[in-house]
């Protein structure tokens, strides 16, 4: 175009070809995004109480499992607010969750959203994935019926508490939910602690925790993640040579830990 000089056009031509989202970063964004979505979805399911936690794995593969697990921890600890609707006319308690999700839209945009104008109906609870929309509607319509309880980081205590509240009204239906939630929360806690130890450079501690996980949950939902973490830990300790690491990666081509294992094992050489 005549408005732009040849130099500027050349600059733009160069800039156009510059940015490509790397695969690693793309995976990282997706995993984090699904975690946040799953956090809302999981809270919704505990609230609905008629759906077993095992069915929460709408995501498939290791990331899906990890997402579900992390969702538990997120719901439990990461600045999540759990509000229990103990309204008599509402037989199933619902959870209003997650201050960890941000609502970028303006109030005008909210007002334009037809589903958010139905505060007392099911979708308000279903919108747990989007608490920025759900919470204001509920709070405005039924302030007395909602008891928002800030939950500190407490290793799954909030999930346990939420599940216990859920069982108060529908004990039979939610027994498996509670048990599965507790198990998954405990698995997640062990792996999270191991991961933190790894990142802090304490591979021995990480291995101890991973051994504990293997003993307690040999066929746990997070067994693949445990094995991957173990690879990273052992590479950090120099216990695994490059060819073994390569063989592991070849056997697990879609592992979400590929980059970490490769980095750890490359650094150990």
């Amino acid at each position, binding site marked *: *175009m005549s*408005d*732009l*000089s040849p*130099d*500027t056009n050349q*600059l*733009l031509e*160069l*800039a*156009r*070809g*510059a*940015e*490509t*989202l*790397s*695969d690693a*970063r*793309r995976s*990282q*964004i*997706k995993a*984090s*995004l699904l975690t*946040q*979505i*799953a956090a*809302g*979805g999981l809270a*919704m399911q505990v609230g609905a109480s008629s759906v077993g936690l095992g069915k929460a794995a*709408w995501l498939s593969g290791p990331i899906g499992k990890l997402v579900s697990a992390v969702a538990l921890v997120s719901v439990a600890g990461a600045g999540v607010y759990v509000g229990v609707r103990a309204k008599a006319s509402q037989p199933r308690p619902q959870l209003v969750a997650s201050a960890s*999700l*941000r609502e*970028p*839209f*303006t109030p005008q*945009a909210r007002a334009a*959203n*037809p*589903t958010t*104008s*139905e505060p007392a*109906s*099911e*979708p308000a609870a*279903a*919108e747990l*994935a*989007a608490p920025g*929309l759900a919470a204001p509607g509920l709070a405005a319509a039924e302030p007395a019926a909602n008891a928002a309880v800030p939950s500190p980081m407490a290793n799954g205590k909030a999930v346990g508490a939420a599940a216990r509240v859920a069982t108060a009204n529908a004990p039979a239906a939610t027994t498996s939910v509670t048990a599965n939630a507790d198990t998954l929360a405990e698995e997640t806690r062990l792996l999270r602690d191991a991961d933190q130890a790894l990142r802090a450079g304490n591979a021995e501690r990480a291995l101890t925790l991973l051994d504990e996980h293997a003993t307690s949950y040999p066929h746990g939902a997070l067994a693949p993640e445990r094995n991957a973490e173990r690879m990273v830990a052992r590479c950090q300790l120099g216990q695994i040579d490059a060819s073994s690491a390569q063989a592991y990666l070849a056997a697990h081509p879609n592992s979400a830990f590929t980059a970490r294992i490769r980095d750890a094992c490359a650094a150990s050489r």
Partner: protein
Amino acid sequence: MDRLAPGQLIDVRASAQLFSAAESDVRGAAARPVSFESLYEAHVDFVWRNAQRLGVADEALDDIVQQVFLVVHRRLPEVASDVPVKAWVFGILSHVVRDYRRGRRRKSPHHSAPPIDPATIAEPPGKSPFETLARSEALSVVIDLLSELSDDKREIFVLSELEQLNAQEIATLLGVNPNTVYSRLRVARQDFERAAERARSRDTWRLR
């Protein structure tokens, strides 16, 4: 308008299955329904690179992309079937980025475009490391120059000169008249060229 009825459950699993096909094109006259995951895969690059071009700092890019897709996920069940998907996603991106930039301006009135870490940019296939670096530096300069444009002009300039969409496509994306696109684009190009000239003058002066 094929919206869900108010009060209908919005379930993450259900919403992922509500639609079946992949991305519609930018005109989207006969926009096809999409699943969340296919929509994510089809648009994440578009969202990421344009978030960067619209002024999101590298360290905030991932968060902004997530915010955009969280809104996409939440609103997917209620979006009208005749809405062009790419335009809809860009509209969300535009809102999110404007909020972000307002927040940054409040925090730091002297903020300038952040440096781009070449390590975060994937090397395009068939390009040498030198060429990759030259391109990322060019992008850094362009982002710096873009910061001198208003939000409206910046969006149109990015869509036209970097995304290489034509005026009709941009009009669809932004929901404005094509004539408005032409006039804003002309002014945006003039502003950008002036900013580029100033930058070149500064560089020339420094090299003396």
